[in-house]
């Protein structure tokens, strides 16, 4: 179902909105390369952050190491924190490589965005963690059939995160949704920095505020699911 409906639908949405953006703003596309490459690098940070949680968790499942971990004194919260640390290392490496390649191949220096970029990156990392924890919870609950979410759930946020186009390109109903997606504030903020050079404090405050709510909900869901899978005996089943 994901292959037939989900991916093509998301592709169509993202590319459709990019096309709309190019048509509507063709007279006024300042620094479009910086918009696109900057957005691509930042989106990849979010994606790696999420994968650092959910794919690292899946690696323990695939290696049948999962029960060894959960039969040890390690607490579930400690396990999630360790996945966050792994995710941070992956982000540093992947983000570094992408930034270097963008500079070498396209003379695009992401750091022209200045120090203001760092809190926005932090916001994306936190959102990636939240999505990763939710994905992990769903895999714990629904088993192997939910594994595809490790690659798919973050992409669900892409069209309404306005990664490659401004929020104003979206229809009004999706603009309302985008307001409650932390990443949309990050990408709007990035474009504001590139266009005006000013620091969009309100976008940062919105994104970090929403991040706090997202990560809180993700942790609550994770502990709720942990309790449920222990009751249903699913924790042992997924680990063998």
């Amino acid at each position, binding site marked *: 179902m994901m292959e037939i409906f989900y991916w093509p639908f998301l592709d169509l949405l993202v590319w459709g909105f990019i096309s709309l953006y190019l048509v509507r703003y063709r007279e006024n596309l300042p620094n479009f390369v910086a918009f696109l490459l900057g957005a691509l690098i930042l989106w990849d940070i979010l994606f790696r952050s999420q994968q650092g949680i959910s794919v690292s968790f899946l690696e323990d499942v695939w290696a049948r190491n*999962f029960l*060894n971990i959960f039969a040890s*004194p390690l607490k579930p919260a400690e396990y999630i924190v360790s996945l966050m640390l792994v995710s941070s290392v992956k982000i540093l490496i992947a983000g570094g490589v992408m930034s270097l390649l963008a500079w070498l191949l396209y003379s695009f220096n992401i750091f022209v965005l200045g120090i203001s970029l760092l809190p926005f990156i932090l916001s994306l990392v936190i959102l990636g963690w939240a999505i990763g924890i939710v994905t992990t919870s769903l895999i714990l609950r629904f088993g192997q059939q939910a594994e595809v979410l490790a690659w798919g759930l973050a992409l669900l946020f892409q069209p309404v995160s306005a990664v490659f186009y401004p929020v104003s390109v979206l229809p009004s109903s999706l603009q309302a949704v985008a307001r409650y997606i932390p990443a949309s504030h990050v990408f709007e903020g990035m474009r504001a920095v590139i266009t005006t050079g000013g620091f969009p404090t309100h976008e940062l405050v919105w994104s970090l505020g929403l991040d706090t709510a997202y990560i809180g909900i993700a942790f609550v869901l994770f502990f709720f699911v942990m309790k449920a899978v222990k009751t249903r005996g699913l924790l042992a089943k997924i680990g063998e």
Partner: protein
Amino acid sequence: MDETVVEVENLTKDFKNLRAVDHVSFEVKAGEILGILGPNGAGKTTIIHMLLGLTSPTSGSIRVFGLDLKKHRSEILQRANFSSTYVAMPYSLTVKESLRVFARLYRVRQREERIAELLRIFEMEEIKNKEVRHLSSGLITRLNLAKALINSPRILFLDEPTASLDPDIADKTRTLLRRIKNEQGMSILYTSHNMKEMEEISDRIIFLHRGRIIATGKPAEVIQSFRRRNLEEVFLKLARGEKE
């Protein structure tokens, strides 16, 4: 051998319409090897998973080292360990790296010395730098057993630990477990389908059938009470009991 390490009382586990474990009570004393036997689906693995806190009981209580497992899980698991033929290790790590990870998880002091000792005991010194992905299932089982002893546990939960070992290594493993049990007073809760092995290694056995304990005692006593020659015959009689 009087100190009680594990106390299980009226342990019950229901899965939807199935009662997997039905009011099971038993104790494991210090330095004792308790074997849990039973046909597939008897509830052996479910009991071990409940003792490790991986599955929550529907009712009943579990106390380990006198502590309630529900409230002191992490503290209890610090002094316990587990091995199963159905689990493995991170395949991108080497044998030695895997043991290092678990030595840290169990906060083992003098980690390198302990790892070197276990590599020697399990005859894995030559493969210590080999990645787990390149190991045979028998070697992974040995690595799992080494991991299970990394923290010198006071109670060891073993779920069919020798199922994929060749007879030589399986025999050495049993000898080693008995030796450690005698030297360190370690308790072991052991499940296996190998009746000869259970007869040989267990101080006491519990026979489970459909989640219930249907026989318990020393292997020789159980064999005698059923007027059979060995545990295998007892197993066959109990497992097929309803049809006879």
